[in-house]
């Protein structure tokens, strides 16, 4: 981007923060016009910083930046939407952060993706009102297709023949549903029920708001979630940090076998 002005305005969602030195932070922003980028906020960890609250992760802000030698520098920031209800609920917060991590991992720097930007804000708005947490599934499916990894749901991912109505094998490696004759060729997969396939098909064309209206029972949601998790793992080739965190909220705290007394090995606080 050589044609960029020395300073510019852009709107974006803050995806994550990393601390830098004594009082600075680097923020990863997902912007409608600029795509994903990192920028530095100077002195933002001092108590009197003007920008601090406007640059919290999950905030949608109007940003003013000056071009820097390496990374651009924030000069002003003002909140557009703080998505407060998301922050006040542990499960909503975890899902929102998981989706932000997906955006971070599925995008490359400075490549604008306006549709994905809208999708992220739709999700955050949903979580900020009373939409069920299942909208995370719609987000997963849509980010896959917006990034060019559309899951094949109508025809067989291997031979292209029409999939008859019924429980069908879903193979993340093949890229979608696999018809019965092709089943031996798909290396791994899981059997999806007709209902789960219908949910996925609906999510393909529905907005987040429409998907929020869909009532999914727990078993069905888990089925859809596992299939999508397979597909995402296939693309990213790793687990997401926030995804692991979401899982850890669901189970009781494990005994890590650490003894309290005399244990001098402790992990330092992150980011310092």
């Amino acid at each position, binding site marked *: 981007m050589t044609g960029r002005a020395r300073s510019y305005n852009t709107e974006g969602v803050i995806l*994550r923060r990393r601390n830098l*030195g004594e009082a600075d932070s680097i923020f990863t922003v997902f912007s409608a016009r600029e795509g994903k980028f990192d920028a530095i906020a100077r002195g933002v960890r001092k*108590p*009197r910083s*003007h*920008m*601090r*609250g*406007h640059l*919290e*992760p*999950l*905030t949608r802000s109007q940003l003013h930046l000056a071009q820097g030698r390496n990374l651009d520098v924030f000069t002003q920031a003002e*909140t557009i939407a*703080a998505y*407060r209800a998301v*922050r*006040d*609920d*542990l499960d909503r*917060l*975890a899902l929102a*952060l*998981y989706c*932000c*991590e997906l955006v971070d991992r599925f995008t490359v720097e400075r490549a604008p993706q306006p549709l994905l930007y809208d999708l992220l804000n739709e999700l955050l708005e949903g979580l900020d009102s009373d939409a069920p947490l299942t909208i995370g599934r719609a987000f997963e499916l849509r980010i896959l297709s917006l990034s060019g990894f559309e899951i094949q749901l109508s025809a067989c991912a291997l031979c292209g023949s029409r999939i008859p109505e019924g429980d069908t094998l879903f193979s993340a490696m093949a890229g979608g549903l696999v018809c019965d004759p092709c089943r031996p060729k798909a290396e791994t997969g899981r059997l999806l029920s007709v209902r789960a396939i219908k949910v996925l098909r609906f999510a393909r064309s529905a907005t987040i708001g429409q998907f929020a209206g869909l009532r999914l029972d727990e078993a069905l949601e888990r089925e859809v979630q596992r299939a999508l998790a397979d597909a995402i793992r296939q693309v990213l080739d790793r687990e997401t*940090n*926030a995804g*692991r*965190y*979401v899982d*850890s*909220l669901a189970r009781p*705290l*494990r*005994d*890590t076998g650490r003894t*309290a*007394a*005399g*244990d*001098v090995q*402790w*992990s*330092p*606080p*992150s*980011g*310092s």
Partner: protein
Amino acid sequence: MADGTSTPEPIQRLIEAFHRLPGVGPKSAQRLAYHILRAPEQEARALSDALLDVKRRIRLCSVCMNITEQDPCTYCADERRDHTTICVVEQALDLLAIERSGYRGLYHVLHGVLNPMDGVGPEDIRVRELIVRLQDGVAQEVIMATNPSLEGEATAMLIQRLIGPAGVKVTRLARGLPSGADLEYTDDVTLARALEGRRELV
């Protein structure tokens, strides 16, 4: 960094050791190493003793996880302190800050904060130790004094969820405007919380 063939091996090793420290680049590491080389032997010995002492003599208090030389630490062993209140902080430095404010209860140091994006979960910080500690029923109130950041709030919410069933009161430090702030630049969340927590002037 200088290559191993021209720099004697002990110096090279020292340079590499310094280089591993946070915030020390290759040039600074070299300067520090050569400074030690020129310095009198006592200075080098004092440094190495201090380094080893901190690893040998400092441990975590078995009660509150604060860093300490004796176990339990001076805060936990002090009978004059209020043993019914536990203030939960992210790191040992935060404890010192709270202590300066005049608080005279007990502490619990988490040694970290939940950070979903970096994969720091409840099992990576000292949450479990807090839960175990609350089982003796002495503590009546747990004050969540994690930072008012996304990560700090997430940690506070998690702990509240985990110890809620134990019947202990969980409170959170007030959030609002810092001294010397400008309303004009204050973000919406902070301002909204400041309004919620407003006080009658007396």
